[in-house]
């Protein structure tokens, strides 16, 4: 294995010259064999090398059973390379992204079109959409501006009556150029930009960003800071899971839980604000540690609020799952079978709802999660019910986790500023955000400057699942299915 790919672990830096570089044929053979053996693609990206304008492609694979990451690279000769998507669907968007960013064509890719329309030469949302032809087939186009207070994206449905045959999702409207702004060292906005990759995942993305810098400088943050980061991450999960259960309730017109959870979500956001002053955890996580402490008095206040919040959400959610008309709408709606979730590379609660045993906190733990375990919650049915129920189970465990972490909070400083970054290294940091696996990969050059910062939001993995979930569904169930994934537009568009 060692001469095929470099094996490492989450939040570790490795010298770039130890990453095996293969010709394209052996690269594809090794990667294909690993994917067939059940490894998952965590990231696959290009980085520009040298003055010749060529690009090196690096793939990071996760072996969830062994808590290991495999890294290998290749360099396409010429402007094309054979697409691996026909054999491995989870590479679909990664190959489109490489094509868009580096002008390399994955020959034989089944649906090669832009991902983010980054340079403005082609208006976002244009290009061919997959069309179903025939009697009584009609097309429904939705967006980019949506009916609620939601981010923009375009959805194109091929319908037969009420039934959806196919859904294609075109994004890119939120593209802000964050990746490029994070590569190239010394951007004073870098950590702030990381917090706004997806504003509802500020803690998750900021933590992953900081972990790459800490790994590259070889300096671990103090234990107290690691514990506070983990508590903030779980608070972020609580607020969003509670909000999602309320929104799911609203989408099946069950208003009690929709109303209750809308308010209770705010209570959890206010707990984050009690910690750091901001409801989304801005200015909390920084390279080297955290900026906000949890003193004893504050900890007491937090635990009291947590107890109250949990009692309220328990009452509201038990009502939800105790209502037959809700269950009738949740069950067998938007089903993603386990095999499809695995093939599409699903992550996060959506993957666990389809029986995939993967959770970065368990499989690739970093920070406090190495010492304080949080159980992995899965369901088998892969429908809206499963995605809702996994969230409820995770809410219960996150509350317990925060209580235990607060009771065992280590003493010590909050910050040990990272030093200079090691030159010619690569660091991978994965964090289990509330939507799932957040991956940041940072590469340094010979001068120790970051020359490429690759971000993969969980939404990048999961948008194709939503498209799949809509097959043979009523179009009127789209809002319900969509909310059961609740994916990020800006996290995808970067």
């Amino acid at each position, binding site marked *: 294995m060692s001469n095929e790919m470099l094996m490492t672990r989450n939040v570790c830096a490795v010298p770039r010259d130890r990453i095996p570089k293969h010709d394209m044929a052996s690269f594809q053979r090794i990667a294909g064999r690993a994917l067939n053996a059940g490894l998952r693609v965590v990231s696959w990206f290009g980085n520009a090398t040298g003055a010749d304008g060529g690009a090196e492609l690096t793939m990071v694979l996760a072996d969830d059973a062994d808590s290991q990451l495999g890294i290998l690279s290749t360099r396409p000769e010429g402007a094309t390379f054979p697409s691996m998507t026909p054999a491995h669907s989870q590479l679909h968007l990664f190959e489109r992204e490489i094509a868009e960013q580096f002008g390399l064509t994955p020959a034989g890719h089944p649906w090669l079109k832009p991902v*983010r*329309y*980054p340079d*403005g030469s082609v*208006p*976002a949302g244009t290009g061919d959409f997959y069309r179903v032809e025939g009697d009584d087939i009609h097309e429904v186009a939705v967006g*980019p*501006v949506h*009916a*609620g*207070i*939601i*981010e*923009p994206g375009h959805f194109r449905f091929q319908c037969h009556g009420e039934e959806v045959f196919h859904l294609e999702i075109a994004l*890119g*409207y*939120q*593209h*802000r*150029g964050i990746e490029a*702004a994070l590569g190239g060292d010394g951007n*004073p*906005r870098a950590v*702030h*930009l990381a917090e*706004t*990759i*997806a*504003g*509802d995942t*500020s803690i998750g993305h900021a933590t992953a960003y900081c972990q790459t810098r800490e790994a590259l400088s070889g300096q671990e943050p103090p234990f107290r800071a690691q514990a506070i980061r983990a508590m903030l991450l779980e608070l972020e999960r609580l607020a969003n899971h509670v909000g999602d259960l309320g929104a799911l309730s609203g989408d099946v017109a069950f208003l*009690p839980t929709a*109303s*209750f959870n*809308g*308010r209770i*979500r*705010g209570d959890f*956001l*206010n707990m984050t*604000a*009690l*910690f*750091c*002053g*901001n*409801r*989304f955890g*801005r*200015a909390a996580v920084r390279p080297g540690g955290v*900026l*906000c402490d949890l003193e004893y008095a504050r900890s007491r206040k937090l635990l009291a609020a947590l107890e109250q919040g949990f009692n*309220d959400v328990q*009452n*509201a959610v038990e*009502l939800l799952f*105790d*209502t037959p008309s809700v269950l009738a709408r949740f069950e067998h709606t938007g089903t993603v079978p386990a095999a499809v979730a695995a093939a599409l590379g699903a992550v996060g609660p959506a993957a666990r709802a389809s029986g995939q045993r993967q959770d970065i906190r368990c499989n690739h733990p970093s920070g406090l999660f190495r010492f304080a375990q949080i159980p992995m919650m899965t369901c088998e049915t892969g429908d809206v019910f499963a995605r809702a129920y996994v969230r409820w189970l995770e809410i219960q465990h996150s509350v317990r986790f925060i209580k235990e972490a607060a009771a065992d909070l280590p003493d010590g400083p909050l910050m040990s500023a990272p030093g200079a970054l090691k030159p010619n290294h690569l660091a991978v940091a994965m964090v289990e955000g509330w939507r799932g696996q957040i991956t940041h990969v940072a590469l340094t050059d010979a001068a120790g400057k970051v020359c490429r910062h690759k971000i993969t939001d969980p939404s990048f993995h999961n948008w194709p699942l939503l498209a799949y979930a809509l097959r043979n569904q009523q179009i009127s169930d789209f809002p319900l299915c969509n909310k059961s994934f609740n994916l990020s*537009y*800006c996290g995808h568009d970067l």
Partner: protein
Amino acid sequence: MIKALKARWFQKYRTMKYPLAPPPPVPDRFHGMPLVQSDRCRKDCDACIQACPVQALERIPGSPLILTDLGRCIFCGACEAACPSGAIFRDKDYRLSTDKRDDLIVSQERQLPLACGMSGELHRLLGRSLKLRQVSAGGCNACEADVNVLGTLAWDLGRFGIQFVASPRHADGMLVTGPVTRNMASALKDTYDAIPAPKIVIVTGACAISGGLFRGQPECNDGLHGIPVDLYIPGCPPHPLTILDGLLRLIRRLPPDADPSTTTAAKR
């Protein structure tokens, strides 16, 4: 049904009394606006100006005064941390909205003139019923989330006659978030054009006001330009109270005692 009623009893009545009673307190670590107390500054020190990631601080040439542009500020506190002489005062006032872009530029000697809102015919038409279209144009979903919060039962925006609607044709105005990405510029313009006149425009968050963290990014447009704006709500993201205060100022629904026209912060 009986279970739903029992749960309703358990969850209690939760809509806040504000604005008739004081609003819920902001957290003790609230990220308030930074004001530079220039009389405390060390001579020739510009640590805060250098530390600001979004160039929100600027010294008036030939003067010791440092201006804070709340339209750019992301309220991150980097200036406060960098200041060697404790000259940065973080005001805890949640009220930050203004009628004009220039009003967001404040200093020790220049108070924040809070928004006065609509007047005359516009107020007569929209003051009691304001339907808004929200357009996210590159927003990170934090501003959007805290606008959405105002619809929950704790805040109950509907009681003021303000509602977010599903079509620009039903709207009296739009609320814009995000730095206006190149890929959203035309959809945003189309939305604006589809709203029947008279219409109002609200920009929410540093991104929509100035580009915020994305100012200067080639993929973005440095916020909303080319359309008249009626209300600026600064923040990254603004607290829901800040947004609600701005909207209530716009429709002039705040009781007079809760509505001093300027904050007191700058007088300290």
